[in-house]
Each structure stands twice: as structure tokens, then as C-alpha cells.
């Protein structure tokens, strides 16, 4: 549950939403990308309220869910073609975007292979590519590097950095705190639906006495106790 929550994310940021299990990260992201409707309060994206111009907002955003949101029996190309077409991309433009994207994630040679035959890292990369094919203004990522090898992780982070340089605002959740520390330009740590601390990673580290990295800040704020929340 998320309550008494005020959050403003500036255009062009790489915004890290961090918190232990059950903190409310997925709920918050789900509300921001229109999957859940807040019982009270409102969410504005580029100044537009979700409930007033839903389709308008959905055109601007991209979502990369934590699960591999792909059809296992479709090939990489077919998945990208289908999801790309939902953003009105078609014909040569769509084909070019798919091929360029596949090249970026080093999977061009695998475009006609079915997703069910891909490794975890390959699926993760296609999962990311599906969410950015339409060049969104704002990209939501829920644990985009979970369960992948270092090489795949690097590819993903580099692509995200490249997108951000081109102006895409990135909103991202992760349990990889060192990754967040180096990747994010702005971080908010939340727990039990409330904001505990926000700022750049340096600001957060300096604000906690004796902390040398984000992990120590995180533990100081959220405690050492093991969480059983979903």
C-alpha cells in the first residue's frame, strides 16, 4: 500500500526507486504506468492526468516488466513486430527499428528463433527492446537486470544510458544497489509505502553517518530484518 506519497521526477533523470520487498515499488510503478488506479490522489505525466488522456500518456511511455512479457512460441522478430505495431509502427520503419534494436542487443542473428529457446539473458534483452522500440519519452523498468549475467547486464545498462542521453526519462526499480548507485541520477528509498529518503546517490551516502555506499544507507534506513512480504 502506498499512502501520503508525493513524488516529482524531472525530465531526463535516471530515477531509481529502491526499497525492500513489500516497500510498494511495484505498486507505485503500476500506478505510474496506468496498470493500477490510485484510490485517491493523482498521477500526472508531462502535466497530463492519467484518467483524462490515458491513450495520450501510453503513447509516451514504455514499460519493461520484471517478467519476460513475451510470447514464448513467437520468434524474437514476431514479438517485436507485434508489440511495435501496438504503437502504430509498421512497414519498413518497424522493420528497421527491430533490426537496429536487435543489433544493439547482439541478437540480430537470433531474430527468427523462438523466445522459448532463448537463455534468461537473451530474453531479458528482448524484453527491454520490446519496451523501447517506439522510443518512449519515459521508460519504466521493474528489475531489468534481475537474473542475467554480467555481459547481458552491461548491454542493458549501456542501452539505457544511451536512451537517457537521447532524452528518455528512466524510472527504474532494482535490488542491485551498487548498480543503482552508479546508474541513477536521482534515488528515492521507500519502505511500507512511504518515502524514507531522496536525493542523488552521493547525497544519500553523505546523509548517513559512516555510510560508504548505497547498500549501507539502505540497511540503515530499512533495517537488517529479513522481509517476508511479497
Amino acid at each position: 500500500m502506498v499512502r501520503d506519497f508525493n513524488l516529482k521526477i524531472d525530465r531526463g533523470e535516471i530515477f531509481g526507486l529502491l526499497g525492500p520487498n513489500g516497500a510498494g515499488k511495484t505498486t507505485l510503478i503500476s500506478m505510474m504506468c496506468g496498470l493500477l488506479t490510485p484510490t485517491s490522489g493523482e498521477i500526472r505525466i508531462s502535466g497530463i492526468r492519467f484518467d483524462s488522456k490515458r491513450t495520450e500518456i501510453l503513447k509516451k511511455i514504455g514499460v519493461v516488466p520484471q517478467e519476460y512479457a513475451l510470447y514464448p512460441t513467437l520468434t524474437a522478430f514476431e514479438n517485436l513486430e507485434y508489440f511495435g505495431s501496438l504503437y502504430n509502427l509498421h512497414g519498413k520503419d518497424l522493420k528497421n527499428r527491430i533490426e537496429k534494436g536487435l543489433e544493439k542487443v547482439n541478437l540480430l542473428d537470433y531474430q527468427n528463433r523462438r523466445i522459448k529457446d532463448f537463455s534468461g539473458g537473451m530474453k531479458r534483452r528482448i524484453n527491454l527492446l520490446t519496451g523501447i522500440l517506439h522510443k518512449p519519452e519515459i521508460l519504466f523498468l521493474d528489475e531489468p537486470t534481475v537474473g542475467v549475467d554480467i555481459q547481458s547486464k552491461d548491454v542493458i545498462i549501456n542501452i539505457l544510458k544511451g536512451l537517457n542521453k537521447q532524452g528518455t526519462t528512466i524510472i527504474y526499480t532494482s535490488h542491485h544497489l551498487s548498480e543503482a548507485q552508479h546508474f541513477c541520477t536521482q534515488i528515492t528509498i521507500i519502505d511500507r509505502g512511504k518515502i524514507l529518503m531522496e536525493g542523488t546517490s552521493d547525497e544519500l551516502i553523505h546523509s548517513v553517518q559512516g555510510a560508504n555506499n548505497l547498500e549501507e544507507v539502505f540497511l540503515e534506513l530499512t533495517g537488517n530484518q529479513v522481509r517476508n512480504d511479497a
Partner: protein
Amino acid sequence: MHKLLASIKKEIILLMRDWGGLGILFLMPSILLVTITLIQESTFQVVGEDVMPVVLVDDDQGDIGKTIQENIAKSGAIEIVTEWKNRPIDEKLARQLVSEGKYQIALVIPEGLSNKLDDRINTNVEKILKQFSMEESDSAKENISSITKDEISKIKIFFDPAAGSTFRNSVKNNIEKMLSKVETQKIYTIFEDQMGIRTDKNLLEGNAIEFDEIIAQKGEDGILPNAVQHNVPAWILFGIFFIVVPLGINIVKEKNLGTFIRIRTSPVSYATIISGKIITYLIICLIQFALMLLIARFVFPLLGLIPFKPGSHLFEMLIVVIFSAFAAIGLGILIGTVCKTQEQSAPFGAIFTIILAALGGIWVPVFVMPEVMQKLSVISPMNWGISAFYDIILRNGNLGDISKELLLLILFFAVTFLLSLWINKRNNLI
């Protein structure tokens, strides 16, 4: 439009790569159509056309046994068996052979049946003639026998326990008819003997009252009903409704894979996504319909079955298929919406379809069901579909005649679809 076409393309590719789903959609209804029609046709032949062996134990050795054998030989449908392994069959062995399933029927004519029957008929004829004062003989009075109906030994018919009641009744009726003929012949003969006259031998041939069998259809170009005309529309409908299984699985899978999340966060309406599924499965139903018609038209004759010819009713049949497909799609969407896992949706969809089929008169015609089931059958959309098919094919009806069934089918789609929408809205899924 572009998004809709992409959705249809995606659904078709997903189906083409699902061998199990394709089997459910095309192979299973085709196999069912052929096997059930063959079984029903052969069952019918066992009772009506093929030669059936019947064990006869004639302990009477009189006129009755002889007449029964003559009549049976004339019919050509029954072969009389009196020996088993070169040994004459007695009552005990006959019973054993039938109970072991070696034969389905055994007839045992008890000793002295002909004589007792003769005595009884003689007595009755004498009584009648006396009442008409046509005979005044003292000897007749003396000879009036006291043999009553109960004293005449009964013919025993042993039936195989596995023989169904319909089969038993059919055989029993035929034997009763034969015995009644024997009795009538005897009465005539005794009357002739008593009165000292001889009538034409052909007098008793055939029935005095006969009937004309007329199929009450509208117009002149209707199709004569047979097992094929009943089975083809029935199994076309069953195949159509079985799409609830792959469609339900498709929707559940989409929810569980996370692809539905991606779709919901894309600028595409639920109407476009669901229309993609509706159109795809409608196309599947039309392909099923064409496949079943082709099988019934061209494969049936190769298997010794009568080919199915829709005649001038193809357009009306197509309309029934489209409306039934909508009803099935609505149900599939509802099942996919309500169920949370494939393990729930697959068996639930399959069993529910079989229940609807049984209730709707696909397996057994509604008119032979118990009264309660007949009343319940009207709630099955498959009953509306099959009624519409029968009205068109067998009763030579037109679209006006099936408007009620078509309305019910499309209402069923509307209700199930709206219910799915409501559930999705309530669960914040659309």
C-alpha cells in the same frame, strides 16, 4: 485497423504453433464425426440390416416352431442357430451361450406349446360357433377344454445382459409380431376346419391396414433424415464449442505470461485486442465447418457411409455456424477471464462443453431424454444451434424459422462477453 490486423496475425501464429490446440480444433471433431457416425450406422445395421444369429431351442417340435423358423427364414435378417460345436442346443446351453455373450438372443419354445395352443384355439372357436348356433354337437360340449391362457407354457427369450433396452425392445416386438401372425393363422385354419371350408391361402398375406411414412417437411426439396444428417450438424457444433478450451487457455496464458501487462500499457484498446481474438476464432470455426462438410461429403462414402449434402441450405448453415461461433467465443472469453491458471481453464472448458453437448442433444436426441432433462436442454446454447440446424436441414426451414435460435445464440455471446468485461473492470484489468 493496423493494430487489429497485427493482433489477428499474432493469434493465428500462436495457434499454428500450438499442435495440441490444433488437434483440439480440427482433428478431434473430425475423428468424432467419423467414428460416432460409423458406430451409429453399424448399430443400426445390427438391428435392422445385417443377418443376426439367434439361438432357437424348439422343444415343441410342432407347428409353432416350424412357423417361426419359416418366418425367420423369410425375413432374411435372422439366422437360426440350433447347434453348438456339432451338438444340439438345449435350454441350459442356450442360456449359457447368451450369458457368455456368444449370442445376443436365444428363443426357447416349450414342449407341447403347439398342442396346447391348438386346444385353446379349438375350444374358443367352438364356443364362438356355438354362440352363433352354427354347431349343435354334444361331442363339442364334451370336448370343451378348460385350458386357460396361463396354462399355456411361455416362450422364453434370453437376452445378452450387454444388449441395450432399445435393442431388446426392438427384437421383442419383432418376435411378438411373428407369434401374433402364427396365432392368427392358426385361428383361421381352425375356423376353416370347424366350418369345413377352405379359403384363399393368400388371404393372410400382408396387413389389412398399412401406413404411409411421410417426412413432414416444408416444401419439396428437403433431405431425408438419417444418421449422417443428424451427426454432421451435431459434431460441427461440438467442434465449434470446443474452441472454448484453446481460447480459454490463450487468455489465461496471456494474463500469466505478463504479455497482457505489456498490452495494457500500450496505446491499444481492449476492444482491438479482444476483436483480434474474436475474428481469429471465428475464422477457425469457419475452417472447422468447411473441413467437417468436406469430410462428410467426400470421406463418408469411402467408409461406406451416406455422403452429407447440404443441398440448397449452405448459406443458412453458414449463418448458424457464425452465430454458434459467437456463442462459443463468448463462453471461451468468460472461461479465460474467470480462470486463473491453465490447469483450471483446460479441464473446466472441456468438461463444461461436454455437459452442454449432452444437455443440448448432441450425444442423444432431446426427445428421448427424460422430461426433466428435456426442460433443462433449452438452456444449452448447443441445443439452440442443433435445433436451428435441424430446422434448416431436416425441416427445410429458412432464416425466419430459426430467428429465435439465432437471437438466443447472439444474446448468449452478449451476456458472456459483458460478464467478462465486468469481471475485468472489477479486477482493474481493463
